[in-house]
């Protein structure tokens, strides 16, 4: 007897397209908004690419830190703010002790880790107590911790915590508002500067790799029909990328505004760190621990009955997320070059969550591809909004408000849609 292969009912092509559009409506809408924004802002391509590249390198790690809690069924971890605070405590310490450059940076990573682990453990315990309302609890926990953070740095620095010198405000109490990490060979840009190469040299290589990979895949799998066309398309993209990059870097054929693209630099080391983290997430999910995380995320009751200690796993998920958020914040701050003591951590949760959701993720499912895509789209909008607002309405501020509205709106819509879908699925059971 041949093996039965049970497949879903085949759908017509038009139905498939419709489903695709509905499932990815948020992302598609965003792509449209971004395209409009880019056109309206009339921004120079090299500025756009350069800023986008920089933002992606510095922000993606933070967004990736959100993945593990989603897998573990705890929703969107708004309390990554607290991981960021741990990072900032470490950065302030390193800067105060004047430990320079990469060494200082490494020390910051080392100091922030145990702080983040301990805080993460307690957040995890708290979220276990608020089962069913984890996301709003994590959000309020972030606010609460912010209060304590401010208490420490506004009132305990210089008084209870013996610090002196330029770091303390003139009144003798409270840490100064901004700390310049670039001067005195500080940790600013230390990670970025390890390896910095023109971006379009990198894309030449990337394009070739894509072409090679898909040709190899096609030889190995010999796909048919739609899949074959997909792979041919990918090869085409790779070729286009390589050709365009060569034109940018080594010829004078392109119009000036595109030729300027060759000045765009990429912090390769940082990018490798981020890429490595992404790969790490994939590897983690292939271990027993990863499978356990997934099980807990799918069905807590079944996990419990099968002998998994659900509460401990959830705590672990948050601990990991907090540590990764701390590391991500260190990468973020070193790229900015400047630490805003009381404000650098404030909106990162909002922006990271919005980015992830824009990439197509939901409360119960998030992938690495969605994280990258989301950061790309979200930050494109970020870059072009002020200028677009200025060009369209004569007011740059309008553009800024628009992007904040979009960030909140995306989260609200995404969460709402997810809740609605869950309700409908429950009814159909």
């Amino acid at each position, binding site marked *: 007897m041949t093996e039965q292969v049970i497949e879903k009912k085949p759908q017509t092509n038009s139905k498939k397209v419709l489903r695709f559009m509905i499932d990815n409506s948020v992302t598609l809408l965003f792509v449209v908004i971004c395209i409009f924004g880019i056109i309206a802002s009339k921004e120079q391509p090299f500025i756009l690419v350069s800023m986008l590249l920089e933002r992606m390198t510095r922000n993606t790690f933070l967004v990736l830190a959100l993945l593990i809690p989603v897998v573990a069924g705890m929703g969107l971890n708004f309390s990554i703010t607290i991981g960021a605070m741990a990072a900032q405590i470490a950065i302030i310490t390193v800067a105060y002790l004047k430990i320079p450059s990469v060494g200082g940076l490494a020390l910051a990573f080392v100091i922030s880790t145990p702080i983040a682990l301990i805080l993460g453990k307690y957040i995890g315990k*708290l979220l276990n*107590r*608020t*089962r*069913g*309302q984890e*996301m*709003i*609890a994590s*959000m*309020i*926990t972030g*606010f*609460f911790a*912010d*209060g*304590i953070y*401010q*208490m420490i740095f*506004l*009132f305990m620095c210089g008084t209870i915590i013996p610090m002196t010198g330029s770091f303390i405000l003139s*009144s003798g*109490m*409270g840490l100064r508002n901004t700390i310049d990490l670039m001067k005195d060979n500080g940790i600013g840009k230390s990670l970025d500067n390890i390896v910095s190469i023109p971006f379009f040299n990198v894309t030449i290589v990337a394009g070739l790799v894509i072409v090679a990979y898909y040709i190899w895949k096609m030889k190995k799998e010999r796909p048919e029909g739609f899949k074959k066309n997909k792979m041919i398309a990918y090869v085409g993209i790779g070729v286009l990328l390589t050709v365009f990059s060569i034109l940018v870097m080594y010829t004078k054929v392109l119009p000036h505004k595109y030729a300027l693209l060759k000045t765009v630099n990429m912090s390769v080391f940082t990018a490798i760190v981020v890429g490595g983290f992404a790969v790490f997430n994939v590897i983690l999910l292939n271990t027993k621990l990863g499978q356990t995380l997934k099980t807990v995320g799918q069905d807590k009751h079944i996990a419990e009955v099968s002998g998994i200690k659900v509460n401990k796993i959830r705590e672990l998920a948050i601990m990991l997320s907090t540590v990764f958020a701390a590391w991500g914040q260190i990468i973020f701050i070193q790229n900015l070059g400047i630490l805003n003591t009381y404000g650098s951590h404030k909106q990162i949760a909002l922006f990271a969550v919005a980015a992830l959701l824009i990439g197509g993720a939901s409360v119960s499912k998030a992938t690495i591809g969605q994280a990258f895509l989301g950061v790309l789209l979200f930050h494109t909008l970020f870059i072009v909004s002020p200028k677009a607002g200025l060009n369209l*309405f*004569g*007011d740059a*501020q*309008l553009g800024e*408000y*628009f992007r*904040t*509205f979009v*960030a*909140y*709106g995306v*989260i*609200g819509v995404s*969460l*709402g849609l*997810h*809740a*609605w879908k*869950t*309700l409908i699925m429950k009814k159909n059971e």
Partner: protein
Amino acid sequence: MNAIKRLGLPRIIIIIFFMSLWVVAGVNGLHVPGLMKDSLVRIGMNVVMVLAMVPAIRSGIGLNFALPIGIICGILGGVMAIEFEMVGLWGFIYAMIIAIPISVAFGWIYGVMLNKIKGSEMLVSTYVGFSIVSLFCIAWIVLPFASDEMRWPIGEGLRTVVSLESTFGGILNKFWAVEFSNGFVIPTGLLLFGAFICFVYYVFSNTRVGIAMKTVGDNPKFAAATGLNVDRYRILGTILSTVLGAIGMVVYAQSFGYIQLYTAPLMMAFPAVAAILIGGATAKKANISFVIIGTILFQGLLTISLPVASSFFDGGNISEVIRMIVQNGIILYALAQGGGE
């Protein structure tokens, strides 16, 4: 003994702490009558917004983190009053006449949406609230207001903070106010209005419809078996909450003397939530006495903690920090009690 049980230990601790702060204030030479006046004012100006939580909790949609929707409607009312130069008590009434129908409409739409996401109301409502505030940030720039009092002298749109001095600022507070020689003032109008709204709501909650709404929130399955349309009563609760939010904002603004536009309303739901929780409510249970106790405790605590803390920690804006800690700590504590699902 029974009273202690009913109030609960955490609340008792807070009350004792609150009382002791007054003692410390006196000992440290702070101007107690002035502080008491400030407390009464803050209580009066916030009580209606805290009351707005009650219909939301009672109808089963939980804590209304989207209170900013109602608040924006209230702001719209106030801004219109300034635009059309409505002065005095009539300005206050005019603001409400504008705000209430708008808040009914918004509340209805929002209520319909909430019915589709039963179980996740609190989280989604937070972001809906944020989105509406952000949307109106754009609106304040774009809408065609003409009043010179409100517009930026150069550039587009309304100012961030708009004064109510020329219209209805302070109108309730000064109404029948009783002034004492030591600086203590009772803002009678304000307190009377707050009491009046609470009374109206109290009467409503004893009508058939009010009881029906509470039934829906207590046990939706039971309500359905009693023939009640659960969805409709949830929408009613949402509308009432939004309307009270609007009214509450108008009261708040007239007391404050200013209307804060743009991003100020973003976080305004949280103090109201914290206040009702500290008063004894949970995400599933609320009544008017919780509102009154909670507002008194929360606002009173905030009023007095700043000067007392400042007298210890010279300088610095410690009140804001304390507010963040206390407010969010209370909400977190309440969430950790109720296991949600």
